[in-house]
């Protein structure tokens, strides 16, 4: 490996590690790394479920005589995952990195830059695919009668698994950026990316519901067998579509001829050829596809009339701050999509199954008595709180300011007013979105009355305000103000996770209180919730604005 490539890889690794550490810890101290075991623990249930499914798949497939189908499935799944996420990772790393303007003038070949960035992405991909692929390989290794080569071959196959799909993603990105002008419209690219993400999520949701029959139930193995027998051609189709999964299977399967070395050689050779292609194409396509930032915008002289009209009124500081929040959110697609998508997706995921269950819907429509009068509005209020808790608007309110925070901090406007403007913005956004959803759902269920609407409007405003104050606390305590990519202010912000946990605990407490009220006297439920939200909003306003008054002075940005 040449000296330049090594230097590049070293700097990329350092950059990625520090970013990861600061993202996790919210600063340079590294204390946040203590949260790492907790994050790993959070994945344990999902990995356990996957492992059980793999075991069922192996047992069923081995009874039919092709237990190695498990290897084909996990390798193919890993490669499809890499291919799906790869395009966005590659475009982000190749074209939107801030360091390209520093690297390109240096005496470094474009292919060396591409290769170093590619290896950086590879490390990230390992973390993405490991929870899906490793349990499958481990299950097969333990269950099947494999040779001694299994462990080294399996490690090599795992390490090289993302190479081919990532190279395909990279080549697609290189060509795309060379022949289109998308680089200048990175916002459009992100919106399109998010929409593709939504489409994929819904598609996988639908597929998931079809596969549900063998992932649950007492007789898993039998169900998997039925499933496999019904889809005999699936394995063949997968191996035809993704030949590397066939070679990996051949290299690892029990009783493979000559220790599966021909499969391994083909797998290694393909990966090497793929890397060679990347080097060649990057040399040719990378420099030409590079673009500068900037979103075009209009460019024309401001007329005296426009100046007179636009400066003709004076707004209160609170209104000016609110307008600024609205404009910045609406004009930053990364922020808007991150705030809007969960709010749109969550109700879809929650209420779409009802479409397939007309009996359940009919049952809900027949609700009467105290359930209809008090239970439904309380449940709708809870849903509104839940929907508004996923928008991430409040939990990133300070972080989104980023390097522009000096503006607010140098202005003669108190942190209290700044926080209130942010809460107001969060309330407007979340109330509007959750009201639209809940009113729509209640209309569809034929449960909406004017009184319920009015109650949801008032109690929802107070509840969402209380939730917004609460979710803002972690971000006030430890904002992430050093981002250059807006994604890091929202998706990559640990405060989102922390405030979601706080909000879940808060809503859990509310459920307990609601149940106690219900058991005491159902008529108490709605007025009590209104009172609780009113008091909480008042109390949290005092506490959180006081916290901001103290913490805003401590930020050293």
């Amino acid at each position, binding site marked *: 490996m040449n000296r330049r490539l090594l230097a590049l890889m070293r700097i990329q690794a350092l950059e990625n590690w520090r970013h990861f550490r600061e993202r996790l810890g919210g600063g340079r101290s590294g204390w946040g790394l203590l949260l790492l075991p907790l994050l790993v623990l959070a994945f344990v249930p999902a990995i356990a479920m996957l492992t059980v499914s793999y075991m069922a798949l192996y047992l069923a497939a081995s009874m039919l005589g092709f237990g190695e189908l498990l290897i084909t499935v996990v390798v193919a799944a890993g490669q499809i995952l890499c291919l799906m996420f790869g395009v966005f990772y590659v475009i982000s790393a190749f074209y939107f990195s801030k360091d390209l303007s520093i690297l390109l003038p240096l005496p470094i070949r474009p292919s060396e830059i591409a290769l170093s960035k590619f290896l950086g992405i590879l490390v990230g991909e390992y973390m993405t695919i490991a929870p899906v692929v490793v349990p499958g390989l481990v299950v097969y290794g333990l269950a099947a009668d494999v040779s001694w080569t299994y462990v080294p071959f399996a490690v090599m196959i795992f390490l090289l698994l993302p190479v081919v799909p990532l190279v395909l993603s990279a080549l697609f990105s290189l060509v795309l950026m060379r022949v289109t002008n998308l680089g200048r419209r990175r916002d459009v690219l992100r919106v399109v990316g998010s929409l593709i993400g939504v489409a994929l999520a819904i598609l996988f949701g639908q597929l998931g519901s079809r596969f549900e029959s063998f992932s649950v139930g007492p007789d898993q193995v039998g169900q998997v067998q039925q499933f496999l027998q019904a889809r005999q051609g699936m394995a063949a189709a997968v191996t035809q579509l993704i030949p590397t999964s066939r070679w990996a299977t051949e290299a690892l399967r029990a009783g493979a001829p000559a220790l599966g070395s021909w499969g391994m050689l083909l797998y290694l050779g393909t990966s090497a050829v793929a890397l060679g292609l990347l080097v060649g194409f990057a040399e040719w396509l990378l420099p030409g596809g590079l673009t500068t930032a900037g979103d075009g*915008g209009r460019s024309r002289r401001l007329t*005296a009339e426009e*100046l007179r009209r636009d400066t003709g009124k004076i707004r209160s500081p609170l209104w*000016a701050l609110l307008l600024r929040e609205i404009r910045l959110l609406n004009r930053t697609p990364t922020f808007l999509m991150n705030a809007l998508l969960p709010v749109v997706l969550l109700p879809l995921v929650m209420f779409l199954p009802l479409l397939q269950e007309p009996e359940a819907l009919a049952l809900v429509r027949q609700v009467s008595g105290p359930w209809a009068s008090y239970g439904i509005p309380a449940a709708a209020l809870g849903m509104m709180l839940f929907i508004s808790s996923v928008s991430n608007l409040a939990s990133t309110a300070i972080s989104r300011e980023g*390097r*522009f925070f*000096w503006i607010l901090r140098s*202005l003669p*406007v108190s942190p209290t007013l700044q926080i209130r403007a942010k809460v107001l913005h969060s309330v407007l956004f979340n109330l509007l979105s959750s009201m639209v959803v809940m009113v729509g759902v209640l209309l569809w269920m034929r449960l909406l009355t004017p009184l319920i609407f009015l109650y949801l409007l008032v109690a929802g405003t107070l509840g969402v305000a209380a939730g917004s104050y609460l979710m803002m606390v972690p971000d006030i305590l430890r904002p992430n103000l050093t981002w250059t990519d807006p994604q890091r202010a929202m998706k990559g912000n640990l405060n989102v996770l922390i405030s979601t946990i706080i909000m879940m605990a808060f809503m859990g407490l509310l459920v307990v209180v609601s149940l106690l009220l219900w058991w005491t006297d159902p008529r108490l439920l709605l007025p009590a919730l209104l009172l609780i939200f009113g008091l909480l909003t008042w109390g949290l306003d005092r506490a959180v604005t006081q916290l901001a008054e103290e913490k805003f002075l401590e930020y050293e940005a």
Partner: protein
Amino acid sequence: MIELYQVSKSYVRGGRKAVDDLTLTVTPGEIFGFLGPNGAGKTTTIKMMAGLLRPDTGTIRINGFDMAREPLKAKAQLAYVPDSPEVYERLTGLEYLNFIGDIYGVAPADRQRRIQDLGERFELTHALADRISGYSHGMRQKLVLMAALLHDPPVWILDEPMVGLDPRSAYTLKELMVEHTRKGRTLFFSTHVLEVAERLCDRVAIIKNGRIIASGTLEELRHGQSGESLEEIFLELTEQ
């Protein structure tokens, strides 16, 4: 008037002080230049004066208002221009100026007059309807200057204000600085361009390792130094 009294600041508790026991006063009608090598503590001092950083010890007063006790009143007195013109890229220039005008409560007629006047002087009127993301570094610097001066504040605190400006705009800014102090107002600015400091400043201070190593008029600085120009004096003092 700007008063700093025994101001100290360190970024790491118990670590090296970025600003160490700094005391100085800038009187009305005075242009005060703040000079020093990179990392000497200029920007830290200015950020504390603008209320962006809290000093560990000491007092800062802007026109008599204590920045720690009455931050809003102190901030309302000043125009602050940072060393790097970071402004909301998703807004248009005019939207940004209107936001600043709303926060300071600048009346529509005054706002319109000031935007027109400053826009023409800095030759930025043509771009005010555009998103800031399309601005060059120099255009952003001009916009930050316009926003800072929009409410016609009595105290200006400018951190490297000439960086990125074209010669005509730099000349305009220097004119504005002189006009400002002729009205009996206060101006404090940092710069690495010693010729500008020599020509404009009534007094200068040189900071090194967080401490002021020299302060006064050019005549006073020359005392005891072999150099004649501010550049020679600066090099002599900062080498010691």
